[in-house]
């Protein structure tokens, strides 16, 4: 009897090891496929024009072959054309704009979201459920519908003119995005988990609603709020359509906008892949740094919230 058991145990173990190996092989293959585009981006950014044009393409480079001029040439000034006098890819200007827009939008969004989530989670008022349902309903509407009129609103407010100032650009880029139904919904869930007893106890102590929000709700919900802040700040990094739409000048745009098109010679139609990938790398690296710094918060936030912002 015990013999049979041992045989089974062995077979079971062998099978388990085999499926483990298969699982690891499969996951490693997927990981490779996920990583390859990043590798190819970096590799291409380090290739000189000569190595770039080798067929079949070189799959790796020795450090002595690394060509950093692709990066430095991004900052060389354009000689002719409409963009003459400005760097080929003004990364640091875009970076500054993106960070500024990100900070303003996130500050606004966090404040409006906390206030609204508090009202929905803690306060009782007529029409609460209807208003909440209507807000959730707007999440279904494609953003393109809003953009059409929002652009006209910005133009009507005199924010989109030939002599547009940086301040006007910032208002145009941030104010329409200073709130989020989704984060309100997400934060409301967290607020709701805070026991009512705390609220009543605070009331007995004479704490106002706003004091309770500041002193109890926000500290208790701070992990969720931090997640909202991080996820929201990443939004400006991939914003493409709106910043291009409401800016008159190149120097006001965000990182995504300068990427496409700047590296194709309008005369010959040839694209400098080395420079293009150097710019793409510059745009990708800060996001990855942010990700690895806040990996836990980001992954927890996304998996709990379950929606791409």
């Amino acid at each position, binding site marked *: 009897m015990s013999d049979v058991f041992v045989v089974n145990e062995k077979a079971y173990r062998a099978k388990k090891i085999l*499926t*483990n190996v298969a*699982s690891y092989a*499969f*996951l490693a293959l*997927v*990981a490779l496929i*996920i990583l*390859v585009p*990043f590798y*190819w*981006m970096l590799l*291409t950014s380090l290739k000189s024009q000569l190595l770039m*044009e*080798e067929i*079949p*393409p070189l799959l790796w480079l020795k450090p002595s072959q690394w060509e950093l001029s692709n990066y430095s040439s991004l900052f060389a000034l354009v000689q002719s054309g409409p963009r003459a006098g400005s760097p080929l890819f003004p990364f640091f200007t875009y970076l500054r704009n993106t960070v500024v827009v990100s900070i303003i939008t996130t500050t606004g969004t966090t*404040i409006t*979201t906390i*206030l*609204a989530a508090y*009202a929905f989670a803690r*306060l009782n*008022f*007529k029409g609460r459920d209807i208003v909440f349902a209507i807000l959730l309903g*707007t999440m*279904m*509407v*494609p*953003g393109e*519908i*809003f*953009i*059409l*009129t*929002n652009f006209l609103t910005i*133009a009507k407010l005199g924010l989109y003119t030939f002599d547009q100032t940086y301040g006007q650009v910032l208002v145009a880029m941030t104010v329409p995005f200073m*709130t989020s139904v989704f984060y*309100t919904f997400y934060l409301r869930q967290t607020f709701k988990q805070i026991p009512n007893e705390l609220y009543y106890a605070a009331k007995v102590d004479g704490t106002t609603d706003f004091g309770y929000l500041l002193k109890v709700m926000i500290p208790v919900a701070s992990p969720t709020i931090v997640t909202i802040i991080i996820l929201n700040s*990443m939004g400006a*990094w991939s914003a*493409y359509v709106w910043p291009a739409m409401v800016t008159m000048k190149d120097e006001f745009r965000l990182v*995504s906008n300068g*990427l*496409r098109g700047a590296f194709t010679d309008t005369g010959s139609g040839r694209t400098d*892949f080395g420079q*293009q*990938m150097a*710019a*793409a*790398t510059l*745009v990708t690296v800060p*996001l*990855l740094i942010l990700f690895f710094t806040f990996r836990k918060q980001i*992954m927890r936030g*996304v*998996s*709990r919230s379950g*929606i*791409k912002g």
Partner: protein
Amino acid sequence: METKNNWKAWLYLAPMLLLMSVFTFYPLINAFIISFYKGYRPLQNSIEGFTLLGNYLLILRNPLFWNAMKNTFVIAFISVPVSIFLSLAIAVGLKSIPKLNKFFQTVFFLPYVTNSIAVGMAFAVMFHKNYGLINAILERLGFAGRIDWIGGTSSWWTQMVALLIFTVWESLAFKILVFTSGMQNIDKQYYDAAKIDSASKWTVFRRITVPLLSPIILYISITSMIGALKAYNSVIGLFGVKLGNPSNSMITIVAFVYKYRAELASPGYYSYAAASAIILFIITVIFSLIQGAVSKKRVHY
């Protein structure tokens, strides 16, 4: 005590509702109004009259719109099921391994935190006829004759394949994460019971994992369908503002909206943009309703 909060609650909601009335509710209504204008000049704010369906009919007679519809639907109907299936398989794989889970999870999540346009450009280089990695691999595997995937002599098919691969690559991250955390919430008892019955892995997957994950699968399939119907940045990243070879061959509905929106000086074009955005809205609503209805019977809560 609670009812006294009425006016106070509205005060808390005021910043959000104020912003949303200007930038969400008014634009939503206004989009419908614009779509009924005739000869609308947005910057002068002048119109030549009204039409109920005129702009919609013009769009439906525009071959470019049907090209956009075709591309959008191909993207949605292929990339969504493929990426759901793949990410389920990956999540199951992640669950079955004893070590390195965190490492793999982190790697798989990377596409989520990258810029669509930057990575799309990297894919464009990978799909380059002469200098790309894809053809280099194919050649090494014995497929002679380099394919022009996305270049000047490429076909609709090869461009679509490249776009689909990029789209799936990009959309796996989020799904893997959500499925993995969903699986962690499945009660271990079910798996233990299956083990006692010595059920095969496939049976466990079909009879336990999928049914118990079904609310999440439904949710993911609806949201990613809506997301896929709005494909745009990925197309810009991979093909640039030309939107494919020849121009506009990879146009999507959203790209169609933006194309007509940009023609501010041409009277009436803004209304086409509005009408096509509303058509997109209607399509997403229909999809969500169908998916909701179909899955009602199949989803276990």
